[in-house]
């Protein structure tokens, strides 16, 4: 036997080493991700200079014949979304938010972030392919700039925005270097919504350009190294992932092997049973238990323990009723906190900011309903700018984390409606010019064809922003006890039995009473025993 054992061991070792070596070698070879089949710098159409963005687009369209129409049928183009379930006409064109309120009559400023050129009024030609801006998404040089107040047109003169110097791009150079979208191109607009870096969402800001794994385990170069488009997959320029109709509970998971799903959900990569079973009973139970939560608790609720945690603050409160104040010498005021965030501006009112914020948790069925200016509101309590349904009884709803934006904004107290308002523009009606609400609202409501009484009051509002970015590494996820506790994160979610928080009062009362009676009975018996025992011993 011993004679046999040695060669057998050697063979096994040899097999092991060769397998190990082969896998190690395989791991070392980087697999190129979707290598391009074309080098745009070689294309005749892209040689030379371009006078404006539309010329570039025309060149793009000579090869990408369908791209114009694809973009034009997407929400990035129309800023309009007819909700399939509620029938509401949503999109930036129509909704009111609790930041700069609305797009109507503020176009040239807002449409600096439009994926097109020149949408500065209602007569913009949405059917013109050449008005599509290809470069704003496909620039890889980082030099492409749109003018901040010129309806999305390419920057032509050097300017400064929020202290950053912007220089006009070399359009030929940008065109010859187009490529896939990136964190920088998507973030160029989506990081800056609501009036600046991180203002609006709380989970989207420039800290995600080069995050540590602790901030975003997916987007970190030391983590998965993903870009926006890796999750927000596209099909014919339609990008997966919507805040108007959120896939609040994705039951499909990864789909069939190799299937490419048009979904931005966590489950589309991680599956519907995302927690791996460990190698011991405790780990197996825990994985099973966590997977058992995934039908009721959104992944985000545990895996995004806090938002705005990349060092960039987000707005939490915006009070437009405080706008319009001037300094003693009649000048407009701008006050900032120590981090440089605007806390008061004559044109804006009072603003509060927050970092490392704990989300608010709500049951969410994914269908976002908006309060639009054609609906009446009750301003005696905070008006929900958007709202949604969901509860423990709804199988499609899960507990989601939200940033709850609060503030005060103008409304029409006679018609009891939220209003559109004209902030931007050179005319006196624009609030940022004339500092008078009545004409600013009258102008915007007239353009939208909506009634306005002429009275202006301020309503306190709430707006819910689902939190889904800034996913932390697994070890930083919430612990069980963060929710399963009396004053835990689920404290506001009633209507379900949450172990660690809830109890039947009757059982508690009678249970404790029985325990107290038992302890008391035992104690009395013991004392009597000891006392009478001692007395008896003394007697004898």
């Amino acid at each position: 036997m011993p004679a046999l054992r040695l060669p057998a061991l050697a063979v096994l070792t040899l097999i092991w080493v060769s397998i190990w070596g082969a896998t190690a070698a395989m791991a070392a070879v980087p697999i190129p991700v979707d290598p391009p089949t074309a080098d745009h710098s070689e294309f005749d159409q892209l040689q030379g200079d371009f006078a404006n963005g539309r010329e570039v687009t025309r060149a793009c369209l000579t090869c990408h014949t369908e791209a114009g129409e694809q973009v034009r049928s997407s929400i990035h183009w129309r800023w309009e979304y007819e909700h399939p379930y509620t029938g509401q006409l949503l999109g930036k064109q129509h909704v009111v938010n609790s930041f700069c309120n609305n797009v109507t009559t503020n176009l040239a400023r807002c449409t600096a972030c439009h994926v097109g050129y020149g949408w500065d009024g209602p007569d913009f030609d949405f059917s013109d392919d050449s008005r599509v801006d290809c470069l704003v998404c496909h620039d890889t040089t980082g030099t492409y700039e749109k003018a901040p107040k010129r309806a999305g047109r390419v920057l032509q003169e050097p300017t400064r925005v929020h202290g950053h110097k912007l220089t006009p791009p070399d359009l030929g150079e940008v065109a010859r270097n187009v490529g896939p979208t990136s964190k920088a191109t998507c973030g160029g607009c989506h990081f800056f919504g609501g009036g600046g870096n991180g203002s609006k969402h709380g989970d989207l800001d420039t800290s995600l350009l080069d995050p540590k794994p602790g901030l975003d385990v997916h987007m970190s170069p030391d983590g998965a190294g993903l870009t926006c488009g890796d999750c927000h997959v596209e099909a014919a320029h339609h990008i997966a992932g919507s805040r108007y109709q959120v896939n609040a509970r994705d039951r499909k998971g990864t789909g069939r092997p190799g299937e490419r799903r048009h979904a931005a959900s966590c489950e589309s990569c991680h599956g519907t049973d995302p927690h791996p079973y460990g190698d011991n009973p405790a780990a197996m139970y825990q994985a099973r238990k966590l997977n058992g939560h995934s039908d009721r608790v959104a992944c985000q609720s545990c895996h995004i323990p806090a938002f705005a945690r990349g060092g960039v603050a987000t707005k939490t409160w915006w009070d437009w009723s405080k706008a319009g104040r001037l300094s003693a010498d009649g000048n407009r005021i701008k006050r900032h906190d120590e981090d440089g965030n605007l806390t008061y501006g004559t044109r804006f009112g009072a603003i509060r900011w927050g970092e490392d914020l704990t989300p608010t948790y709500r049951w969410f069925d994914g269908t976002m309903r908006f309060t639009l200016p054609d609906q009446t509101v009750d301003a005696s309590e905070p008006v929900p700018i958007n709202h949604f349904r969901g509860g423990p009884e709804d199988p499609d709803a899960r507990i989601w984390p939200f940033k709850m934006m609060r503030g005060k904004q103008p409304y029409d107290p006679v018609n009891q409606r939220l209003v559109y308002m004209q902030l931007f523009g050179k005319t006196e009606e624009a609030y940022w010019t004339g500092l008078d609400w009545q004409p600013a609202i009258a102008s915007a409501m007239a353009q939208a064809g909506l009634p306005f009484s002429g009275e202006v009051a301020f309503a306190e509002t709430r707006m819910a922003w689902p939190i889904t970015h800034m996913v932390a590494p697994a070890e930083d996820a919430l612990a069980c006890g963060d929710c399963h506790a009396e004053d835990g994160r689920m404290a506001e979610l009633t209507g379900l039995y949450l172990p660690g928080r809830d109890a039947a009062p009757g059982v508690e009362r009678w249970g404790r009473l029985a325990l107290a009676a038992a302890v008391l009975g035992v104690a009395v018996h013991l004392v009597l025993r000891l006392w009478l025992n001692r007395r008896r011993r003394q007697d004898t």
Partner: protein
Amino acid sequence: MTRTVTMYSGLERLWHWTQALLMTLLLATGFEVHGSYTLMGYGTAATTHVLAALALIVVWVFAAFWLIATGEWRQYTPTTRGLAAVLRFYAWGMFRGESHPFNPRPKRKHNPLQAMAYLLYGVVISPLLWISGLVYLGIDLWGTPGGLALMPVAVVHTAAAYGAVVFLVVHLYMITTGPTPTAHLETMITGKEEIEDAAERTAG
């Protein structure tokens, strides 16, 4: 005359002490999961609780087999014969230094009150705990929205757990009520007990 007998076999003692250990662990972790206090953290408590429960179910299955196969289950048949005397002893005679009216012997180890308490624990409290516990553990399998709610399951489980705590408190105290305060404990560890000779007792 007294003589020393083996009251509890090694197997019985192993059963008792594993059950004692696991029940203590289950109560400690269970009431933490219930939110009564924080000791080791919810996740650790819940995991320990489930693993201890599964272990205890295994112990119970073996114990049940042993009780049935050996006929030892008869130890727990309830009787009122001698019950009044035992009740009188604990409420009165014990304080006057009287000796216990029940004479345990291997065929009938438990006095009538004791047997009833163990029966209550064995056929009411324990089954309530493990049946509701197993339903609780499998809630993900049938706890669909609109399906079985967790609350009634948890309420039964908690109520039975209070029953187990009360049992434990009284049980621990009763250990001290032997001829000496540690006599019962020693018996449960060594299995040996000194009993009165049956013949002498009959004669007396």
